[in-house]
């Protein structure tokens, strides 16, 4: 019952918000849905293992953690959105508010569903609910961003659907076995067809990996995060990616139960390490704050699949990492949004010297960036530590070494941008000393081009 309410309540609020004429009504709807959602999630913590709809919706550890993350993130973003929407026209406000609430409903569906096709439906709904939010500024750049986002995400999510059908094919039909229900899949794992199962996992990795933004399927991410309003970036980097991780984790659970961990883990490790490499390459010398956050998101998604690919302690670290990453990303996007608003630009060179102009936001950004690069005492340090020590304990010393090296490079890249942004001189002095963007790359050389598919 609670599970159904968690999905239906925001869905109904989304419809109402679209038709609400007055801004105060929309604000109340947003607050009401966010508050009620958080209370219901808290109630779930005390009544675990509740099952509804013939096992289609159920609560388990991973689902509950992601649900809690989304609920917390949403209430913070909603409180930020109330102020943001005051600056928008009534029509934009209607679309924006109802898009956010639809996202909350869809994300709750992903976290709660134990029916994998239903999970897919929720995942696709989160994708679509984000599209109007990304296009909120209604200009050419945001149009380009939303098109890339839609095309790449849609292809990714279509591949994930193929993965769901392949998994259904792997499951033999027998009386009493509910097709595509996670618990039955795991219970009957030995009888699953190995061949179809492997094929399903490959497509799930490609599909949900695109939604998570694993390299090399990450090309939509910097554009989208760069152009979307900051609070949308917060929802995407903290919420949508975590939902996609849930999807991939469900498939990994089934494969592990079927004794195919040896097939799944090297793939996960490979994608994880490659994402770290790409993120490190683009974070060093990045000139745009929001794009930096996007590549940092690629890094953390890489760490998530790395942890899952290690198994054991690594998986524990990965689940902890989902929570930490989601909250820190939300925090960072919102405060960086404040600074960008104050400076009127999101190029690092223009956001200089913020410690004097906006001391509180600037301090919060510094703290957030230390958190996001995994320094103690923040939560991300703990989860990254768990993942790396998981690598050592599971006898992957090379993986541990490579991950540590790449994390160090990323830390240096992020720290450089932060210190320049916060302590650097005012706009005039710094810009005149170093003409052009602070990017060390020549303008004609565009590494993004290598990764982008030709239609971008």
């Amino acid at each position, binding site marked *: 019952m609670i599970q159904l309410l968690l999905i239906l309540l925001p869905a109904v609020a989304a419809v109402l918000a679209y038709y609400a004429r007055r801004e105060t009504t929309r604000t109340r709807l947003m607050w009401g849905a966010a508050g009620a959602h958080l209370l219901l999630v808290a109630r779930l913590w005390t009544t675990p293992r509740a099952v509804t709809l013939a096992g289609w919706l159920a609560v388990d550890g991973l689902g509950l953690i992601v649900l809690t993350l989304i609920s917390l993130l949403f209430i913070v973003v909603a409180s930020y959105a109330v102020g943001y929407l005051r600056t928008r026209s009534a029509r934009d406000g209607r679309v924006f508010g109802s898009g956010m609430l639809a996202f909350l409903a869809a994300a709750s569906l992903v976290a709660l569903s134990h029916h994998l096709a239903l999970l897919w439906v929720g995942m696709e709904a989160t994708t679509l609910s984000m599209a109007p939010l990304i296009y909120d500024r209604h200009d050419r750049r945001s149009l380009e961003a939303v098109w890339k986002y839609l095309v790449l995400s849609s292809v990714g999510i279509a591949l994930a659907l193929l993965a769901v059908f392949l998994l259904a094919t792997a499951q033999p039909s027998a009386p009493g076995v509910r097709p595509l229900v996670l618990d039955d899949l795991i219970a009957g794992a030995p009888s699953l067809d190995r061949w179809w199962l492997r094929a399903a996992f490959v497509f799930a990795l490609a599909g949900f990996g695109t939604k998570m933004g694993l390299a090399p399927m990450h090309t939509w991410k910097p554009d989208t995060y760069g152009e979307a309003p900051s609070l949308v970036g917060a929802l995407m980097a903290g919420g949508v990616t975590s939902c996609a991780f849930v999807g991939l984790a469900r498939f990994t659970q089934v494969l592990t139960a079927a004794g195919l961990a040896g097939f799944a883990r090297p793939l996960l490790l490979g994608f994880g390490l490659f994402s770290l490499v790409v993120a490190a390459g683009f974070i060093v010398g990045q000139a745009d704050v929001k794009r930096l956050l996007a590549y940092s998101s690629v890094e953390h998604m890489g760490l998530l699949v790395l942890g899952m690919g290690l198994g054991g302690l690594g998986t524990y670290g990965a689940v902890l990492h989902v929570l930490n990453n989601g909250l820190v990303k939300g925090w960072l996007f919102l405060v960086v949004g404040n600074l960008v608003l104050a400076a009127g630009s999101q190029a690092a060179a223009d956001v200089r010297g913020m410690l004097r102009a906006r001391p509180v936001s600037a301090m919060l950004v510094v703290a957030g960036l230390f958190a996001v690069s995994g320094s103690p005492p923040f939560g991300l340090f703990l989860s990254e530590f768990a993942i790396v020590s998981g690598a050592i304990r599971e006898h992957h010393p090379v993986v541990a070494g490579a991950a540590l090296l790449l994390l160090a490079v990323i830390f240096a890249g992020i720290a450089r941008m932060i210190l320049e942004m916060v302590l650097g001189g005012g706009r005039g002095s710094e810009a005149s000393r170093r003409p052009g963007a602070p990017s060390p790359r020549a303008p004609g050389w565009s590494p993004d081009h290598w990764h982008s598919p030709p239609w*971008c």
Partner: protein
Amino acid sequence: MRSLAEVLLFFVILTDFGVLAMSRLSACIRAVAAQGLLLGILSLVVEGAWSVHGVGLALGTILIKAVFLPWFLRWAIREASVRREVEPLVGYMASFLLGAAALAVSFAVAARLPPIESGPLLVPVALATVIIGLVVLITRTKAVSQVVGYLMLENGIYIFGLTQIRRVPFLVDAGVLLDVFVGVFVMGIVVFHINREFDSISAAQLTELRE
């Protein structure tokens, strides 16, 4: 029943190649609409019996894939007054050959797969349609053509899903159809805005965001 399904699948392949070979956008849209109609009938034939689930799914499929979405895409190109695909990245002959290669590969792969009960043609045709959809999506520069490619990709996955039609509950089918519907709808709206902003609906002009 099985031979009827095979005739339908043969026509699905024809529509695949139709989209590859035709330069007029409205003809491509018509081909993909015909594919949607074939899919709707196919779902009835594969189900093999008249059930609420089967008929509902077939009607929903035809309504969405063969009637509404093609109508909507035609609206988008009429508003944008574009008629033909200008200079695709890969020529029509080359993309036709790519399609033929995709078909051959699909049959070769499908022959090695563990057998499933729904007949020998369903899986290779599904695979070929998925690959040809991806080819259209990647090699065409018009935003509308890319939507057509995405629809073909979805159709291919749908054909594969038909092998599981008896096992996936109606609610899920409806959710999948609804998502595809809303997805293409949102894409269509974006296409419309691209047209208004850029005076053309070529996605090749979307190049402002670069590293």
